[in-house]
């Protein structure tokens, strides 16, 4: 018994369904439902991030102009500037997602585009998180030094004693390395958990084609 011999019967069976045929009203309602596809989730996430980037830009800029402490002003001013390229990257991703969603491609091209889009999103997310870590640490040290300079009682006790100074900087470097490594590992794990398995599945399907 082969596929050709069963073609007609099998076709009938596939067409038969226990679900009732949808009414026009039901179909109409479906067009207003929220999509549960991965790409729509990414789109929602990108829109959410664009909104927050704009909010952060406004907030950070406000702190920059209002703050009287030079360290704080530079810290938030730098992050406000960083929000600008990040917003452009997100808008670019959103544009690509919209083009993808409004097209009807063949299966192979569709899978390739979907793979590239999700992969790009993950890479940009990872690169941006990693780029923020050294900037955040450099400014933390700068702000800390600024704080010590303004609060003599803290700084004098450390600066007087060379051993304490070495221990302090040793601890600081160790802390930066540990937290940096932790964030690196966590971000990798988080991205893999969210999209890694799905990407792997698409890759296997593309290999099948």
């Amino acid at each position, binding site marked *: *018994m082969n596929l050709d011999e069963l073609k007609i019967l099998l076709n009938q069976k596939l067409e038969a*369904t226990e679900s009732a045929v949808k009414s026009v009203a039901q179909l109409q309602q479906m067009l207003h439902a929220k999509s549960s596809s991965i790409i729509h989730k990414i789109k929602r996430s990108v829109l959410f991030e664009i909104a927050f980037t704009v909010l952060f830009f406004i907030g950070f800029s406000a702190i920059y102009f209002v703050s009287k402490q030079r360290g704080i002003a530079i810290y938030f001013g730098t992050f406000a500037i960083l929000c600008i390229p990040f917003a452009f990257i997100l808008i670019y991703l959103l544009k690509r997602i919209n083009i993808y969603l409004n097209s009807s491609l063949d*299966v192979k091209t569709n899978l390739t585009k979907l793979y590239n889009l999700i992969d790009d999103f993950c890479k940009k997310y990872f690169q941006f998180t990693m780029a923020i870590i050294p900037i955040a640490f450099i400014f933390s040290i700068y702000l800390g030094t600024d704080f010590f300079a303004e609060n003599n009682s803290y700084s004098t006790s450390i600066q007087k004693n060379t051993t304490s100074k070495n221990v302090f900087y040793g601890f600081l470097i160790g802390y930066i390395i540990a937290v940096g490594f932790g964030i690196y590992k966590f971000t990798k794990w988080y991205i893999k958990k969210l999209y890694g398995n799905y990407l792997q599945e698409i890759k296997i399907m593309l290999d099948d084609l």
Partner: protein
Amino acid sequence: MASKQEFIQLINTHQRLIYKVCNLYMNNSADKDDLFQEVCLQAWKAIESFKGESQFSTWLYRVALNTAITFIRKDKRKAPQTFVEQFPEIADDTSKEKEEQLIAMYKAIGNLNKIDKALVMLYLEDYSYIEIGKIMGITPNNVAVKMNRLKLKLKEETEKHYQF
């Protein structure tokens, strides 16, 4: 560009086609309904890309298969029915033996990967290898090679199941 009403009419006329894809890719009614809805949504979003160069059914197949292949079940904790458990029964004159063979074939198709399921579905719809190639994005030769392999695989699997 089709208006919303025109689009709904088109979907209404072709809903059997969507159900077919849903039946092939999903194993319980809740998942089938979710996929059906997702196909309708994707088709509505992409309707502007339908220029009438091919039949609407061919275009809809492309959208439905793309959606089904990349679809993820909402609630993965819910145990799905096996492919055979949800085998639809039709009151017809199919003999008992034929019915068993059909179930075996249905089960074998259910065990295929998503890409192979799409190929089988289009083959069952009597699309030519050229048309299948266009929908899948591969050459007709590649379709022919894959179909030959698939037919052999299904035959072996069916015989395995049918012999019990």
